[in-house]
């Protein structure tokens, strides 16, 4: 199996380390080798409102670093994924911008050539490893677990650039979830927005969008919600927990896809870091429903 440079971004290393540890463990089981490259910077996504160039150059520097080491990039956060893809696209169209970028990069001995490939870890599991092989690596499967998957905007759109799955009817994440024996339920918010990008800018609006998603998922009978993006997960986990305050009963547990896989693979729970998910209650001797 191929080696990839693991791109974590800024949120995962300090706010959801369990995403990194569980993904690493799961991919190791599946035979994917991950290399950590020191010196990666922010993907630029959070600064796009302010300055497009800061946004593009940030992503591009990361790609140049990976190119220098000779690895393609594996991404775990949709916003990082889309940013890297957009930067790759913009730089392939704009020679002037490319030259300006490479002048900056030259100061530290880097050059962006545009040869690096950007892959979301879902694509690697789905396309490179395959559902069949994945199923063989599972030690146990779930029954009666209803999961609401949310793809996250930036893995799907703009489709010409991200090139992930079918733009209007994606199924990769549903299929990957169902490989664990769980049921990926049909619900309204599957392709929608989690509201995270408005957290801090318009908290009220962000909370409305979040609540709408949670209500929709619960009404459709979800036991938990799964996302594959750092921002989505923080929104469904930390922000949901913060805004629920004392209303513990209404909380919809949020779990990350590699955590779900890891449970089925029998990976050490400490490595999966499920107790770091703020919306999942841990009971003595095991997990609270729905993961019991």
């Amino acid at each position, binding site marked *: 199996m191929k080696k990839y440079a693991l791109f974590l971004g800024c*949120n995962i290393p300090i706010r959801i380390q369990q995403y990194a540890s569980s993904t690493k463990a799961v991919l190791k089981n599946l035979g994917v080798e991950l290399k950590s490259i020191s010196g990666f910077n922010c993907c*630029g996504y*959070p600064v796009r*409102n302010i300055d497009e160039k800061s946004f593009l150059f940030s992503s591009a520097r990361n790609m140049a670093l990976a190119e220098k080491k000779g690895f393609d990039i594996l991404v775990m956060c949709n916003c990082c994924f889309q940013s890297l893809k957009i930067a790759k696209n913009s730089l392939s169209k704009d020679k002037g911008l490319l030259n300006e970028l490479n002048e900056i990069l030259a100061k530290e001995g880097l050059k962006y050539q545009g040869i690096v490939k950007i892959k979301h870890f879902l694509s690697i599991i789905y396309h490179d490893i395959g559902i069949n092989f994945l199923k063989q690596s599972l030690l146990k499967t779930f029954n009666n677990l209803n999961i609401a998957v949310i793809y996250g905007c*930036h893995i799907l759109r703009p489709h010409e650039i991200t090139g992930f799955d079918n733009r209007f009817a994606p199924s990769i994440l549903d299929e990957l979830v169902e490989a664990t024996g769980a049921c990926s339920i049909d619900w309204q918010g599957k392709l*929608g927005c989690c509201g995270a990008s*408005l957290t*801090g800018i318009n908290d009220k609006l962000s909370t*409305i*969008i979040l609540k709408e998603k949670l209500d929709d998922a619960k009404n459709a009978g979800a036991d938990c919600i799964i996302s594959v993006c750092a921002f989505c997960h923080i929104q469904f986990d930390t922000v949901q927990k913060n805004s629920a305050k004392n209303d513990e009963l209404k909380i919809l547990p949020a779990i990350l896809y590699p955590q779900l896989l890891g449970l089925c693979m029998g990976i050490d729970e400490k490595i999966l870091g499920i107790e770091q998910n703020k919306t999942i209650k841990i009971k003595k001797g095991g997990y609270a429903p729905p993961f019991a």
Partner: protein
Amino acid sequence: MTFHLLLYLSLFICLTGLVLKISTWFLYKVNTSENDISTRQRISAAIKGTAHIIFSKKIILIIKSFLMDVLLQKKIFEKNMLAWIAHMFIFNGFILLFLMHGLESIVSENLFYDYYSTINPFLFLRNLFGIMVLAGTGIAFFKRILLKSSRINSNKEDWFTLFIIAFIILSGIFLESAKISSYSEFQNMVEDYGEIDDKDEMQALESYWVKNHGIVSTNIINTLDKKTLLLGSEIHDMSCSECHSPAKWAFASFSTAKILKPISLSLDKAGGVILLWYIHIIACFFFLAWLPFSKMFHIIASPIVLMTNAAMQQDKFTPANLLNKQIIELDACTHCGTCNLDCSAIMFFESLQNQFILPSEKINFLKNIASGKKLDIKYLKNIQKGIYLCTNCERCTKICPSGINLKKLFANARDNLLQKKIPEPYIYSQLSFALTLENKFSDEHLEALKSVDLLLKSSFNSLKNINKTLSLKKTKALSNITYRSCYCCQSCTNICPVVGAYKNSNEVVDMMPHQIIYSLGIGLIDIALSAKMIWDCSGCYLCQEYCPQRVEICDIFYNLKNLAIKQITH
């Protein structure tokens, strides 16, 4: 006499400086909004905290940290080998020189009963330590010039510090080399210690020293025959060798003396030894007096920070001790720039060229706040932008070789700036996401958002109060021209999650996405820029994906946001 006068004067300045600087640890604070904690409370908290650590098991952690973090500088070693070599050379070379040579009458003479500065190993070691320091400053100098120069922002103090350290060592080497070649020094020594009977013996000894120990003399021209040298060697063995190892062991000074040979005689006649001695001790004493007021003060502050970090987590600190520690942290910063090299926001800096994006420069701002310096509005606006252009990845805090909690300091800087109520458009970016998660000072954050909202409203003509006629001009400011294909089907508005979030969206949303695109089509970019909707856009790209005319709505919104910010910040 002069020596002692200068020594006591510089010692006095140094001690006064130390008292002043240390008193600021209990007087200054980085966050003016913090509850008032009196200096007395802060001092007593510091004493209690220190006692608590020393008289508990934590002392083991402190000792371990002293060895690993302070003496061996583990953090620098892990991050950058070259920087570690440079720092170890300077630090160890300088400290050892200071103890062995600077404090010879206190340390060396008591420790070694046979100590004599002119015999080995001390003669050799002095040169070795000096060369270590010079090599270290050399590496540091070239690192600052050559490597990633744009991110290591070297200021005058950085250069001066390297200069003064190198100057002390170089002046010492020149002084020793002048002594080696000095004929008058030789004569004095012979008078004091030589057991010489006649002129021949004197000449023999002189020949021997000229030949072997670097003396430059006019008397010795052609008399270097074997017999004389043999005699000279015998006298040397009797009178000199006991207290004088061969001068070549002072390898740096001996080589320097060789290079300076052509001017040695005139230098000696002009009193070069005395002159160089003054230069050397004045440089040393200056360094001593200057230390508390410079970044060299980190040799006291950094170990304190590193060791307290090892003993205690920051969230266990009492509020008073937290205030104390933050000021010590500011003194611990050496402006080394390690934080900049690993900063996640580094390309924002390359694009926007605001030096305050670099963590090391933000620290300078905090030093200014702490000391109560008045800062002008332009400076404040720039620093505020720098403070907000931070991804909150905390890498600077993890990497700082002095153990400074930059994250906490920057949070305080932000609180400080929030109170000045200068509207900051950069707050309208997803960088605010991390700030909200921490859930602190959210009222001030909301107020700041409102002030930016007002600023935007007052900067652009909104649809409601427009009184000009339609221009129907092409909108030149936008690079993305796909808006021209819009035929106003409103698919974008219908699918927008923001519009859909409100039951009364007609009242709450000031302009619908299709209206914004349409206003661009009729040349009213000002109206589009005024729309609150562009800032409420979540960037989900649903509109763009569903647009039958392939108008890149979401991308255009990003264009508009960039443009609005550019216009109101210039």
